[in-house]
């Protein structure tokens, strides 16, 4: 109970700090909706060409943009770690009777919750504003999304583990969002990618998430059809957890200029 209480204290503090920043809501929610609005007609044409006659484009562009823009959580979650170092509060927390895993759990929970909330908002507004229809199992859709959220949280931890400066986190976030979205079929269906790029797609988590989403949204399939994508995403997350467990050190000094702080 005490352990959860301390993690709760850290998570609550991070939420209080996040709620004072409106930028992340614009990046995570408003920006994908804008891109969806502009891109839907083009995606509709692409899906019609591929034989999905009843598709309106939302089936590709809504999950695609939801995945691409949620990747910017790397920036905001990275900020939650790095600013503690800049504000000298990291060592202050460490000097209190708090276990390492309690700190990590307290930092991870808000990130996971925000990712889930962002995905829920974008998919829900995708349904009401852009006519996104879930032809298959809603449960399967949620499971794929949760698996991707878990993978993303572990990727964020790995990024924080490896990066020494916040500028490095920004580079990973910006480059990663574009690259993984492009390679994984979030920007355009994988079979429409150049032939030299498409073989790389299965090595990206976005590919597996999009494959799961396509199964549910376009092909109308259920949970059994998305087990493989979910399994691959969770396996990737497990590998990252092992990496973080081995490499992450709370006493590593982090630095970097924080934007607007």
């Amino acid at each position, binding site marked *: 109970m005490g352990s959860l209480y301390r993690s709760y204290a850290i998570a609550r503090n991070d939420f209080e700090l996040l709620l004072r920043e409106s930028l992340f809501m614009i990046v995570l929610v408003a920006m994908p909706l804008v891109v969806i609005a502009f891109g839907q007609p083009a995606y509709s044409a692409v899906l019609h060409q591929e034989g999905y006659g009843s598709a309106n484009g939302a089936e590709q562009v809504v999950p695609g943009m939801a995945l691409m823009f949620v990747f910017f959580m790397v920036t905001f979650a990275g900020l939650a770690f790095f600013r503690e170092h800049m504000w000298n509060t990291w*060592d202050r927390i460490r000097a209190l009777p708090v276990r390492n895993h309690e700190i990590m759990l307290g930092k991870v929970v808000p990130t996971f919750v925000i990712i889930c909330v962002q995905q829920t908002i974008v998919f829900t507004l995708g349904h009401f504003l852009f006519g996104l229809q879930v032809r298959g199992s809603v449960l399967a859709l949620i499971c794929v999304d949760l698996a991707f959220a878990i993978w993303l949280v572990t990727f964020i931890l790995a990024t924080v583990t490896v990066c020494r400066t916040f500028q490095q986190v920004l580079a990973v976030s910006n480059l990663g969002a574009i690259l993984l979205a492009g390679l994984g079929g979030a920007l355009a269906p994988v079979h429409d990618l150049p032939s030299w790029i498409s073989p790389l797609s299965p090595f990206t988590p976005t590919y597996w998430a999009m494959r799961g989403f396509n199964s549910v949204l376009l092909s109308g399939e259920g949970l059994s059809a998305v087990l493989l994508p979910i399994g691959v995403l969770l396996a990737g997350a497990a590998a990252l957890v092992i990496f973080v467990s081995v490499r992450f050190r709370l006493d590593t000094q982090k630095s970097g200029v924080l934007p607007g702080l």
Partner: protein
Amino acid sequence: MTAVVRDLCDRRPMLELRDVSKSYNGVPALSKVNLDIAPGEILGLLGPNGAGKTTLISLTAGLLAPSGGEIRIGGLDLQTNLLQARRLLGVAPQELGIYLQLTVSQNLRFFARLAGLRRHQITERLETVADALDLRELLHRRAQDLSGGEKRRLHTAAALLHGAKLLLLDEPTAGVDVDTRNHLLGYIRSLAAEGTAVCYATHYLHEVEALDASVAILEGGRVTNRGTVAELIATFDEAVVEITFESTVPPGMATHGRVDDEENILRIRARDPATALSNALASLGDAANRIQAIEVVKPSLESAYLAMTGRRFDPKTQGTDHHRG
């Protein structure tokens, strides 16, 4: 606190450092430091920049691992009982560590929760500490809107919330006004009177005297002197005549005293400073017109510090000890 821990705390020094060493990339910052602080004792930790004060505090807080030696807090080995030992510890580091976007109350409640206080305890302790550090009127102000001194008070208050048995305070009065300083010193004295051990790193010698603290002087990563203020003054019961020259100290004058690192100040320790000064001036001859200033430091903690380290304790130059060590 368990009965076992309470019993240990009653009988042992609250802080014990045994042959503690710390190196950074092979460069020693602390070398075989031995230091005890008893319950109720206030220890003034003094030393020039780079002496190892911040390293010592970081090691004691468990933020750094020692390269060698043993640290015990309330009898608990820091390496094997880190979490339990930290329950006895309150730390206010040198650099401000607060959340500027949050209010004073939010900051204090956060650190209180992490220290393990429950809701009803938090409210009670928050009020006590806020009163003690004159923060009550500021509880709902954002930390970023506070003055420098108010921020420092908030920073210090966060270390006092859980009633620690050992307080590590690194320059808690930096940037605060005189009233706040006196208020804070009074509160620290009252905590010590209740049995709290305090390690107080400061750049103000008069604070050490005002706290009636014992003193440890760190130099080059070693504790060179340890004792009460009275003991140290008695050991170095001499005034210091300080003669500052426009350029380097004239040749031959070094036999009268000690030339400082800048090579333009001659310091002469003497029981009879008037005679010592007159002898020095006589030896100077024509070089006397190169004298820029003369100061006599009467027997005090400052003259003792001068005698021990060969340096003036100047807060202006001591106040930038950001170097880890």
